[in-house]
């Protein structure tokens, strides 16, 4: 592991995590650079990208096609159109072409949809009931988290409350329920309920569009690693940083297709962008905050076990105790379950060699995922530093101090006892 080079013009940091601050200042990641860590994070990126390829497609399918279906029993049974839908960042037509692979659904995803856990072709409903499916519960939990922590996406939320948005939504709702007096009557009685549902569907679209970018990024990283072109953790982080800037200005929008007609609920012309209206709120909502997941621990809000202020929520992947993962039905467990189906062989072998073998594979996948998300967060911090502060090799000591202040401010959030930053520094954290 290369030793982080200290800036010659600044004294050593006195921060609790001084080593990590110095590493960030040297262009590194919060995750220590080691072949083992690289193997873990790249392996899990690939395993994450396959279900993510389904998540974004289904999120857009729900936002654009299922829409306000009062009985959306089959919303996870994605249509062929959406499985074939070209990813805007992959394939020959991808612009920018992030992944050199095909732009439709990943082959492993298609195979899993066809074969499920049973390993043979069955009607899709059978696979679904037999848990041979991609679990959308995690994706929906992420969407809800982004929607609920409304303070982190002020411009987007302000638009959701605007008259323009209401008018667009109203148009789409009326078109969707045309010829359905019962639903139209309900809409007349409780318009806010329907509007609220549409707002949520806008977040489905927001998250779907965010992940449409991330899936090919992760596929490409996995391919580069396999080709020997990604050899260090900082290189992996830099790839993410570059990717963030490459797609930062891509539009975030929400459109609905009703009877062949497209209704623009959030038009692209509103200027919502991938970085500011999707990526940064996503990181804050999912990596840092989320919400205490039901089923893992009982929280007593009256005893102040849950913070009063949403900004103080720290239940995200960077803080999560992944130990309870394994309880049936909770979203993080279902994500681990999804990733488990697509692990590269080298990760499976690594897990098998650990103390409990494959018995606790969901926990081990969770911990690996946590490491990889610290690397993604590092990329976000470096990208923000690039946007808000100064280059790392800036000769001006005041600028370097500003960079350090920025890094320290970011790392301050991991001083909390439940933060796993300390843990991921150790290889023994499994």
């Amino acid at each position, binding site marked *: 592991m290369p030793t982080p080079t200290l800036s010659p013009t600044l004294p050593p940091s006195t921060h609790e995590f001084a080593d990590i601050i110095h590493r960030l200042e040297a262009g590194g990641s919060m995750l220590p650079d080691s072949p083992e860590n690289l193997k873990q994070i790249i392996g899990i990126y690939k395993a994450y990208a396959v279900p993510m390829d389904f998540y974004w497609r289904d999120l857009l399918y729900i936002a654009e096609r299922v829409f306000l279906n009062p009985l959306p029993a089959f919303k996870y049974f994605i249509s062929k159109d959406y499985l074939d839908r070209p990813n805007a960042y992959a394939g020959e037509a991808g612009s920018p072409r992030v992944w050199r692979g095909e732009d439709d659904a990943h082959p492993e995803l298609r195979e899993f949809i066809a074969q499920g856990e049973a390993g043979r072709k069955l009607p899709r409903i059978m696979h679904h009931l037999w848990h041979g499916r991609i679990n959308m519960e995690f994706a929906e939990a992420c969407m809800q988290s982004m929607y609920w922590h409304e303070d982190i996406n002020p411009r987007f939320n302000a638009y959701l409350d605007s008259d323009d948005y209401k008018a667009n939504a109203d148009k789409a709702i009326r078109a969707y329920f045309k010829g359905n007096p019962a639903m139209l009557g309900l809409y007349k009685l409780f318009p806010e309920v329907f509007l609220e549902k549409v707002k949520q569907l806008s977040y489905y679209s927001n998250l779907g569009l965010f992940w449409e970018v991330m899936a090919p990024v992760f596929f490409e990283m996995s391919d580069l690693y396999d080709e020997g072109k990604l050899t260090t953790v900082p290189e992996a982080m830099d790839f993410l940083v570059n990717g963030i800037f490459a797609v930062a200005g891509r539009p975030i929008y929400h459109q609905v297709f009703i009877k062949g007609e497209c209704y623009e609920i959030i038009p692209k012309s509103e200027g919502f962008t991938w970085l500011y209206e999707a990526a940064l709120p996503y990181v804050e909502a999912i990596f840092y905050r989320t919400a205490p997941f039901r089923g893992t*621990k009982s929280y007593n809000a009256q005893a102040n076990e849950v913070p009063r202020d949403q900004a103080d929520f720290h239940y995200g992947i960077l803080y999560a*105790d992944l*130990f309870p993962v*394994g309880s049936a039905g909770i979203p993080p467990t279902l994500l681990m379950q999804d990733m488990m189906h697509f692990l590269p062989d080298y990760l499976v072998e690594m897990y098998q060699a650990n*103390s*409990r073998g494959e*018995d*606790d594979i969901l*926990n081990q996948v969770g911990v690996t995922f946590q490491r990889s998300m610290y690397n993604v967060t590092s990329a976000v911090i470096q990208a923000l530093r690039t946007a808000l502060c100064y280059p790392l090799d800036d000769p001006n000591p005041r600028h370097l101090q500003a960079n350090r202040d920025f890094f320290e401010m970011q790392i301050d959030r991991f001083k909390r006892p439940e933060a796993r930053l300390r843990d991921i520094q150790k290889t023994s954290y*499994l």
Partner: protein
Amino acid sequence: MLSTLIWLPLLGAIPIALFAQTAKQSRNIALAFSGAAMLWTVWIFSQFDLASGGLQMQEFVSWLPVLGLNYDLAVDGLSLMMIFLNSLLTWIAIYSSSSDIERHRLFYPLILVVSGGVAGAFLAQNLLLFFLLFELELVPLYLLVAIWGGPKRAYAATKFLLYTAIAGALILASFLGAVWLGDSFDFSYQQVLQNQLPLVSQVILLALLLVGFGIKIPLVPFHTWLPDTYVAASPPVAILLGGVLAKLGTYGLLRFGMGLFPDAWALLSPYLAVWATVSVLYGSVTAIAQKDIKRMVAYSSVGHMGYVMLGAAAFTPLSMVGAISQMVSHGLILALLFHLVGLVEDKVGTRQLDQLNGLMNPTRGLPLVSALLVLSGMASAGIPGLVGFITEFLVFQGSYIVFPVATIVSVIGTGLTAVYFVILINRTCFGRLDSQKAYYGKVSLTEHLPAFVLAALVVVLGLRPGWLVQWSEVTSASLVAALPEVEQVQLAWQEETSKENISFARQVPLDIALGE
């Protein structure tokens, strides 16, 4: 035929001591010989005549007739149950011992010597032979605790040695008295049974036996060696100590205390019932206060052996069957508990209740061990459907007619058993596993195997208690039949103690000195 059970383990000790190169080899040889002994036990079961209450399959070789010592073996319903327990638990103790144990060429032979010696003691029909074999297990066990034990093993082993040596001396004194006061030098059990000793002599000799075997069982207040020794002993040795060796004490009381001194037994039975009840309550209440699981199980053992004593004190046919079955049931449950505690200690590194938590966790805890721990706790607490229930119920059902108050108080003891097992299970298995510390090794199927075997017996014999009690029913009935009515003995006692100028304490040495 019965000799095989003694000599097979002893023979097995020789190749291990001389030829075994690795611990694995030693273990495999020990498993082979103990397994063969177990199969032989099964064969003995198949040959056993259920209708006969007397001794069967007798073997006799004249050894030292001048001393009255002969190689005299036989089996009845009582000893049959004990040799079953011994064979099974020896195999399980060997199986559950670590495959890379140090000084394996000594460890396994010692276990086999203990097993052979104990089998011989259960089968011996000569008082001196019993005593010799009873003493034979003392030194190997001392070494097993002192060499392979945990912290404080030297202290525990020495304490065990001292207590058991004193117990041996008292037992020998009682045996000598029983033979010599009968004007005989033949230590054959059947011969000694013919001796008609005065009631006062019987009471004194029984008292010696009660203290001697009371130490071995142990009963309060002779129990203080037990928690220290159980805690210091490694799990396989603890299985042998609690599962089999403790039964030498109860077996001795039933065979010799009750058999040789029936009048005194009948006379003292109300006091024995009180003593049993005190043991039950003391063991249970003390167990509640423990923080170390092994120590808790050790005190629970004191309580559970009290039930055996209660059943024997009541000496109704039902309570006797209950007492004998309780010995087997306790042996199985205790072995199961010690094996599981050994697994917990091996994987987690502690037995302390205030450090253990959340072992039921399905992915990183010890879920199957926890489930079996719950099962064994339920069995020990006498939950219906498990073997502990049926044996305790037999004791209570049988003893209630004779000692209702002692029985009811003992029933409260089972409630207390449930209390400490709930504490144990709640603190050990439930709660949240600490993710910072807990990444325990996987418990393999082979490590679970002894627990599966024992748990299966606990459940099957709980559901079909007939398969357990049928072997000892006739023997129990014949043991009870040999005992007189309590009132009759009490009258005799009053008569004897009111006779003028009879000072037994003075008379006995005089008689012996004169050789009369």
